[in-house]
């Protein structure tokens, strides 16, 4: 080797590179992969639907010198001459394709059967480099006319019709209504059947079907059958509103109403009121109260109002009642059929007003804050109305048995606060109150003596101050909390969250508050007061 004058390391390096797969590359070799025929079934009958297939493949790694594509009948002797041959040379890298129209080399249409398409890539020496085969089926035979199951013409009262049949040698059927296609279905290849629930329009529905196979060979359309839909009254579900009412003549929720909607005329629309609980599957123990309607009715919505009276005009007692509604149906000939569907909706008659609200703790006679929070108890009420001097302040929803904290904004001077409860049936309780709360801002150091969460110390001065500090101590002198305001004002409000300076909640009990007011001229005034914390 050294005789060729190569350096000593060339050979070992070449061996090493070869072993590592890094040896210098030779000329690029083409590789053909991914042969496909799209579609794989064609019907070259000149109808424009699947008359030819596209054979496609991918050339990679370099230009393919020579590609041979041959078509033979599937299963035929490969030594015989192919029916069709394509010879392609110097095919570039990338996806490549050609079309085959189902004809042989002489231009004659080949018969329906399965064909084998073979692609062979050869190099410049004629050696086979790559090979692939796909199958292409020629099918120019249309499937037979489908057969529709069931009678040719029929009348039904349901809007849904089971449309089914047999579509031999087909893959898909097209459904027609009055000659217009409206749906396609896949045919079950094993049973060759199809089926669908068709939603019918009122009146005649001319239904027909046509099938086709994978080669897009279409069968003739069947003769249409006529399915006549006869609409009969169906009663929609109903709901009485309000479901609680108080027929006491006070103008508030004195009646309830229900809307019965039928989609076709009926010979009998019955609306009755019965007393008792709604009947499910148990024995009906309800008692008839009154009949609101028992007569033919046209299609549409019908509103029935019940004013809480029985058949002789007496207001019924409190309790549970329900509407029971049904509409007779009819058959396809128009004969009446007693309704099997009875719709119900429960209502409650409640003429009993809720108890008057009470306040859990007495309202303060006077306060130094601009609002007061009152804890109000209600019983069997759904709403609580709060009025101040006759003006509605708030309207809040409450539970049946509830204690509600109501914040009432106050005006200067005396405030007359009243409460009234109401229930869902519109019954109003007696008015509770008035509770008189006087709002004033007297000069001095003030706070609620029973100091709770949300309360504040108020400092009202005759002259503006520079800052105020309130220090809180236990009765044994333990410092608890320091409250501070550096705003210049003559009126301060310092809330205490009942936490100490370390952020821990303080215990209930008496606390001494030492107030230090620093005025603009630097003078300081000090005073003390005591409160009792009750959380």
């Amino acid at each position, binding site marked *: 080797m050294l005789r060729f004058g190569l350096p000593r390391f060339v050979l070992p390096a070449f061996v090493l590179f070869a072993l590592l797969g890094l040896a210098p590359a030779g000329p690029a070799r083409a590789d053909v992969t991914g042969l496909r025929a799209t579609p794989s079934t064609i019907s070259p009958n000149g109808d424009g639907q699947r008359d030819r297939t596209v054979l496609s493949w991918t050339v990679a790694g370099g230009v393919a010198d020579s590609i041979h594509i041959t078509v033979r009948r599937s299963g035929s002797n490969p030594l015989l001459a192919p029916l069709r041959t394509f010879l392609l040379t110097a095919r570039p890298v990338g996806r490549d394709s050609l079309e085959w129209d189902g004809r042989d080399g002489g231009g004659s249409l080949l018969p329906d059967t399965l064909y084998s398409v073979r692609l062979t890539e050869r190099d410049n020496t004629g050696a086979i480099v790559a090979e692939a085969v796909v199958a292409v089926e020629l099918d120019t035979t249309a499937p037979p006319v489908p057969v529709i199951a069931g009678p040719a013409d029929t009348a039904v009262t349901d809007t849904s019709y089971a449309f089914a049949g047999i579509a031999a040698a087909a893959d898909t059927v097209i459904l027609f209504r009055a000659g217009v296609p409206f749906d396609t279905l896949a045919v079950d290849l094993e049973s060759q059947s199809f089926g669908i629930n068709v939603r019918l329009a009122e009146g005649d529905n001319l239904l027909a079907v046509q099938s086709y196979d994978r080669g897009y060979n279409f069968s003739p359309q069947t003769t249409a059958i006529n399915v006549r839909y006869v609409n009969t009254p169906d009663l929609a579900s109903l709901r009485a509103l309000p479901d609680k009412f108080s027929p006491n003549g006070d103008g508030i929720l004195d009646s309830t109403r229900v809307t019965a909607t039928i989609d076709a005329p009926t010979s009998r629309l019955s609306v009755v009121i019965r007393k008792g609980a709604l009947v499910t599957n148990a024995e009906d123990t309800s008692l008839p109260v009154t009949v609101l309607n028992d007569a033919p009715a046209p299609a549409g919505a019908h509103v029935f109002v019940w004013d809480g009276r029985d058949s002789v005009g007496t207001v019924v007692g409190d309790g549970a009642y329900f509407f029971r509604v049904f509409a007779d149906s009819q058959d396809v000939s128009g004969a009446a059929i007693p309704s099997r569907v009875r719709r119900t909706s429960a209502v409650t008659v409640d003429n009993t007003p809720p108890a008057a609200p009470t306040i859990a703790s007495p309202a303060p006679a006077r306060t130094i804050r601009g609002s007061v929070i009152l804890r109000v108890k209600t019983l069997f009420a759904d709403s609580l109305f709060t009025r101040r001097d006759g003006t509605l302040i708030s309207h809040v929803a409450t539970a049946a048995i509830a204690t509600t904290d109501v914040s009432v904004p106050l005006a200067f001077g005396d405030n007359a606060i009243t409460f009234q409860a109401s229930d869902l049936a519109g019954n109003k309780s007696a008015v509770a109150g008035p509770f008189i709360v006087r709002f004033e801002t007297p000069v001095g*150091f003030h706070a609620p003596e029973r100091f709770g969460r949300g309360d504040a110390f108020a400092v009202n001065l005759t002259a503006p101050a520079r800052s105020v500090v309130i220090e809180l101590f*236990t009765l044994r002198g*333990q410092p608890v909390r320091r409250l501070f305001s550096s705003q210049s004002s003559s009126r301060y409000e310092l809330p205490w969250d009942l936490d100490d300076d370390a952020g821990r909640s303080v*215990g*209930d009990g*008496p606390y001494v508050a030492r107030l230090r007011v620093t005025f603009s001229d630097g003078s300081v005034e000090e005073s*003390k007061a005591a*409160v*009792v914390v009750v959380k």
Partner: protein
Amino acid sequence: MIGRRGSRLVLAAALAGTVAGLPTPRSAAAAPTAAFERPGGGPRAAAIGGHSIVLPDDDYALGANPARLAFAGRSASAQYDRIDPAVDLWRGRVGLSLPIGGEITEPLQTSRSHRAALGAALDVLNLTLIEGSGYRESAATLGFAAAPSAILAFGVAGHYERATSDADLIAAHAWGVDVGMTIDLADHWSAALAVRDALGRVTFDGGDDEDRAAEMTIGLAARAHRFWQAEADYVFQRNTTSALAGGVEIHVLPGVLDLRGGVSREMLGPARIIPSAGAGFTVDHLRLDYAYRSDPDGGMNSQHQVALGVRF
């Protein structure tokens, strides 16, 4: 055979063991009440630091350390504390102690001890609230002490309290139990341990049921008979050291005039120093005690306590 000195060492060891085994007072996380907090011990204890539990030898032992009732003899007292006139804060108290067992004082023992003793007291506190309403706390306390020997005693006291007010919706009731023990370690040394409100609850009407903050005090006292006596106290509350206190009583005219002085370092919240001083005058069986405390950082500049007691 264990001698007298040896038996006291055994008792001291028992005391230390008891201290170590005491339950930890309840934590402050439960927001213990601020109501019904009464300093015990009267003017004499207030003048020597305010936390004395070893030296009380009269009916004030009931509030300071019920075990000391065994060393109280027959005594009664009436007390008035003027705490803060700005909020009309004052306290009043009457108390009584009665030995119910035989005297077991040993020869040369400077304190007189009885086998068992009872104590009772009524306390009131008055406070005027911010809008002028009155607020009052009252308590009735009953205690019992038993002394297994002349140098060792145990005691327990129970108290029931009520709070009332002219203001609407301010009322409370409470109960508590105090326990304590005391021991003479040597001829001139004594020690004691007391837990105030070891058990107890407070309930304000409309409020939550709250714990009372248990307060454990360990005290050590030394005395030179007819000359002086002094005490140092360590107070533990809310899982932390809450106070260190100490004071001395000098018998200027033995049996007639005592002068007292003390200081307390209160450590709950910002630490503050409270100096105290006082005097006691004894005439025959009557004794008049006075104490002064100044706590400006605690919002109470000058506090005066005066009590009249009698031994019978």
